């Protein structure tokens, strides 16, 4: 799966979780940039990503991700394994 394909699918998940059908994601995007991104929506987003991509994160993974770019990389890594 290419980074672009991941981003494409991730955008849908983000739009659903953050209830914003126009949301566009970028690599540098962090929780500060999105209205309503708090610990709860964060968990919802992670769970959505796990379901959507058929992967499992550990608590360590979740804590290590600092922005959307790192999330995309993490997804790519998990998918490759």
């Amino acid at each position, binding site marked *: 799966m290419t980074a672009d394909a991941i981003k494409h699918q991730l955008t849908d998940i983000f739009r659903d979780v953050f209830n914003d059908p126009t949301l566009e994601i970028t690599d540098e995007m962090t929780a500060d940039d999105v209205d309503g991104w708090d610990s*709860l929506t964060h968990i*919802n987003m992670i769970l959505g990503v796990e379901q959507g991509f058929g992967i499992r994160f550990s*608590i360590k993974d979740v804590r290590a991700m600092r922005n959307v770019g790192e999330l995309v990389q993490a997804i790519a890594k998990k998918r490759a394994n």
Partner: protein
Amino acid sequence: MLNFTSPLFFVALALVACGLYILPGRWRAAYLLVLSYGFYAMVSVRFLALMVAGSLLAYGIGIGIANARSDSARVRLMLLGVGGLLGGIVVFKIGGAWHGWLLPLGLSYYSFKLISYVIEVYWDEDSVERDLTLFLSYPAFFPQIISGPIQRSEPYFQQVRALAARRLDSAQIEEGFRLIVTGLMLKLLVGDRLATLIAGVDAAPGSFGRIDLLVTIAGYTLQLYADFAGYTNIALGIGKMLGIDGPPNFNAPFLATNIQEMWRRWHMSLTTWLTDYLFIPLTMTMRRYGLAGLLLCITINMALIGVWHGFTLNYLIFGLMHAVYFSLTMLYLRYISPPRGKKAPPEPRLRRIVRTAFGMVLTFALMSSTQIFFHSARFDQAIGILRQVFGLIPSGARSIGDIGPGAAETFVICALITVWAGCGAPGARRLSDRIAPVAPRWLQYGVGLFLLATLTPDSAGSFVYGQF
């Protein structure tokens, strides 16, 4: 002398802060430790021993985890550390709630600091701190011991290390002073006045009219905010004077338009702690149960926020009420509320203002409804107030104005100031800058100190969150 509102304390603080910057860098961590232990010992030497024991346990566990060869050893050590520290809180909180024990000063706060440290080291062995002096000063750091804020270990250790090489930072000192003065004003001039009036209603709530009782219930939230945010500012200010920035506890909570947002802005050092060490791990574990699992996690998290204050039925109900409000808010935002976002169809200005204002008022009202249980010492008192609010028992005819001369006016003024402060004190900085040419900052602080000296009520002083 030990009280953060006592003039003598601040005289001592000034001397102590001078000492810090005069000392050679390598002595400063030890100096903070001596100060903090000295501060604690003046309250209780026996409980100081307890804190030292807890600190040494966490210190040893941290090194043990870092040195452990196997994952299972790491897990065992982590559980031992967390279990031991949590056990201490549980024993004393139960003893306090059910047998009237005296709670060790700051137990909940320093234990949570130590627990976060143990878990951080478990997650990342590089977080381990081997410098014993530096480590011991972390849970004991006296500006944060009475009621937090609950600082994480990493930022604390980094700042104390940096302190060794640092010269006195003029801007930080002034910011610390500003925080102390504004914190004292919020606490002593506003919060303690509200507290006196609320106590006047508490003495016989049944004799007051329904509207006045509702206003008083709103007052619970306002008084708690003025008290705790005032305290936090003072604590942060004292920390800054000693070169340590602490984490914020409040971010304009009254601007929140729903309960979920309220919790991102209220007692943040506690809620982020619970999020990181309880809520996220718990939801990750329960993820296969989907929405039901998530709701259960929210309930557990909120119930624990409640009983963290004390093992009483009222605090549990406080937490469970928030769990219900929080869950409903989450479900609404996820499934019912219209889509939002920058590119969503523009909303008419008036409608947006009305919606925001409605959200703020509703959030405040929900928060206040939980405060009935938080504020009342006993279950039946809270139920009595609720029954009166809903008209199930007759109300009296007294109004807040009957408590004493000027009571109603004082209540209104204090409430307005608190709401203003709780909305992030909009315009305060701009006003301060604008009048600076006429009234320079030293004069502004001077007027603040003068108001503190002349308008502090006689009954002022103790902090609500000091008991937790």
